[in-house]
């Protein structure tokens, strides 16, 4: 990350991340934090009944960071948060690999749980990432968007 990074709490990267390290950094300097909720999305070995060998994550550079920051800001406008972070990996991953991290801190747990859940629901339907699966025989399949993800997002518009 360069110093002029306009979105210091958004990271789109090929590298893996360490949960403890990221949460520690996110908490640094905030003595009034009482609750830290984090979500880690991981690659499952089976999807829609098929064995997965490789999961490839493609994204839209430039738009991705902007979309993620917009989602993050929406969460901060809606709940009293101390800090938050979104890391999303791109490139090739294998089953059990970490794909995404959303971590949120707040004084109390209610805001932290809701904000982390909200960010994930919006990320799923609004951030320009696409998943492509490779099966053991080498065949590939682009993952279909799930109707349930759209429904999960709309749940917050009440």
């Amino acid at each position, binding site marked *: 990350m360069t110093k002029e990074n306009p979105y210091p709490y958004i990271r789109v990267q090929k590298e893996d991340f360490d949960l403890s390290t990221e949460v520690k950094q996110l908490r640094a300097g905030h003595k009034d934090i009482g609750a830290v909720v984090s979500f880690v*999305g991981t690659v499952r070995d089976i999807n829609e009944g098929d064995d997965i060998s490789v999961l490839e*994550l*493609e*994204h*839209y550079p*430039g*738009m991705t960071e*902007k*979309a993620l920051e917009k989602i993050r800001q929406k969460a901060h406008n809606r709940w009293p948060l101390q800090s938050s972070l979104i890391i*999303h990996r791109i490139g090739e991953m294998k089953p059990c690999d970490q*794909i*995404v991290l959303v971590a949120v801190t707040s004084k109390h747990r209610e805001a932290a749980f809701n904000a982390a859940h909200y960010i*994930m629901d919006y*990320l*799923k*339907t*609004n*951030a*320009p*990432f*696409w*998943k*492509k699966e490779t099966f053991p025989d080498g065949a590939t399949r*682009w*993952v*279909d*968007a*799930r109707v349930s993800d759209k429904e999960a997002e709309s749940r917050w518009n009440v």
Partner: protein
Amino acid sequence: MLDILYFANFREVLGQGQEQLPSDNFKTVDCVLNALGERGEQWKMALVENQNLQIAVNHNVATRTTAVKPGDEIAFFPPVTGG
């Protein structure tokens, strides 16, 4: 000129991820789409007749009626599946 981007299976089906179009005649995204649709059945199905088509203009979510101007970056892609 307009910068046109294609992502995910659009990129694969259309055989390219990026191209430039002269911007003179295009007032809206829809004009661009119709011009692209004339390239053949593949283009028509992926872009013009695709009910799930997602559009962004200059990194912002857009629709078919969104206005375009010279220098704009227009992206077409399927529903997102990250996370």
